[in-house]
């Protein structure tokens, strides 16, 4: 059996990230670890770079590529596999071959999942918005019932006004995971709605997005998921980070407005 279609490998890749993008990239990290193990490394190096990818792995990669909004999921899956295998082949005499393949894969995933490639229907935002509001309302109600003496509204207002670092400090600072700390992770309905409106507005403009490679590693997942794909986070920390990242997107709405006035 091909080493890269074992349940073991697929499970490790599944665990390597929380988003489809992170999993596709995580595959390179899993293989990088394996190459350090002599027995597995030798088996991997012996694989034919140009052979067709094993079906199970190709199906897995295609599904993840689809989930991250790739324009051509199967082609992306094939290319990522090829890049991975090239990295493995060259690893014996070029230790940086796998990190280079990883960087190239990141750029290709970014290219294939540009917003223009995966315009999502408006109803998805509406459903996501309603779902977030429902979850937040239910959590709020539960909290108020269980802890009537706490002034939750003030606490939430303070938190939503704080910067990302402050927000994370507040959350990390709590001694035990109480209901309050869980609720404090959620964004307010008005913030979520505001963010939906921003994303919708951007869909009507011509926007220049910053390159994902230019962002710090820890911001990339949030950037791709929220700013690029328009999935509004319900987590306050991510929402604040998204607000910060949105400032880096430059949009021009003039041509659309002109078109509307002519029509």
């Amino acid at each position: 059996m091909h080493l890269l279609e074992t349940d073991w490998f697929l499970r490790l890749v599944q665990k390597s990230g929380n988003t489809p993008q992170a999993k596709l990239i995580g595959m390179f990290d899993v293989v990088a670890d394996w190459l350090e193990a002599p027995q597995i490394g030798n088996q991997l190096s012996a694989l034919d770079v140009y052979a067709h990818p094993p079906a199970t792995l190709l199906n897995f990669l295609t599904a993840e590529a689809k989930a991250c909004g790739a324009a051509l999921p199967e082609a992306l899956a094939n290319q990522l596999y090829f890049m991975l295998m090239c990295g493995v082949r060259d690893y014996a005499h070029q230790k940086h071959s796998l990190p280079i393949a990883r960087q190239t894969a990141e750029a290709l995933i970014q290219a294939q999942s540009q917003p223009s490639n995966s315009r999502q229907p408006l109803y998805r935002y509406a459903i996501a918005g309603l779902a977030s509001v429902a979850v937040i309302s239910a959590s709020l109600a539960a909290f108020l019932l269980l802890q009537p003496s706490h002034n939750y509204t003030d606490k939430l207002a303070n938190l939503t006004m704080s910067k990302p670092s402050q927000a994370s400090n507040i959350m990390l600072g709590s001694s035990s995971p109480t209901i309050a700390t869980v609720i404090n992770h959620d964004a307010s309905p008005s913030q979520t709605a505001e963010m939906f409106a921003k994303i919708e507005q951007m869909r009507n403009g011509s926007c220049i997005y910053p390159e994902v490679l230019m962002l710090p590693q820890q911001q990339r997942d949030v950037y791709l998921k929220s700013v690029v794909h328009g999935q509004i986070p319900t987590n306050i920390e991510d929402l604040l980070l998204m607000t910060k990242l949105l400032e880096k997107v430059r949009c021009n709405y003039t041509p659309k407005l002109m078109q509307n006035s002519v029509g």
Partner: protein
Amino acid sequence: MSLLRERILSTATELFFSRGINSTGVDTIVAEAGTTKMTLYKYFHSKELLIIEVLKKSQHDLYAWLELGLAKNKKPEDKLNNLLDLIDDWIKAPDFKGVSFIKASTEFPQESNAIHQLSSEQSKQFKLFIANIANDAGIKDAEVLALQLALLIEGAMQAENMQRGSGAITYAKIAAKILIDNAAKHS
């Protein structure tokens, strides 16, 4: 070069690309070229040497075509982006049947094989070709960028080999632009 030798070479190239190298016998090549086995062996001695000559000529033709296309760019930095446009044109051409060194590597995976060794060498030369363009364009890590672009190009060609009209090169070009811009910023 003798006209007959040239005809055998071009017939073999066409057949290797359309039917595969291993599945094309010498009998088919001589029949298509309108010659005899004796003449083929007079010029090429063995099928292996014929394959090696096909690989060398294909590589030579590829660079001649790329050099001609790239010569139109006055600025070295424009050559990098234009390289991907040329590859795009090539892949989308109706008669595109793949890249000789990728095809040969696929059919001869054993590292000890002379054909495999030549195709590996040609793959390295291709990276060097890109690295030289990147170097002229003032890219600091020209070698790294060359490896990245070669991965994108070869990956798109591989995807195209698996599914004609895959469109993979379109996104490889966008990714290449991201990597080129990023490398230029750090140079």
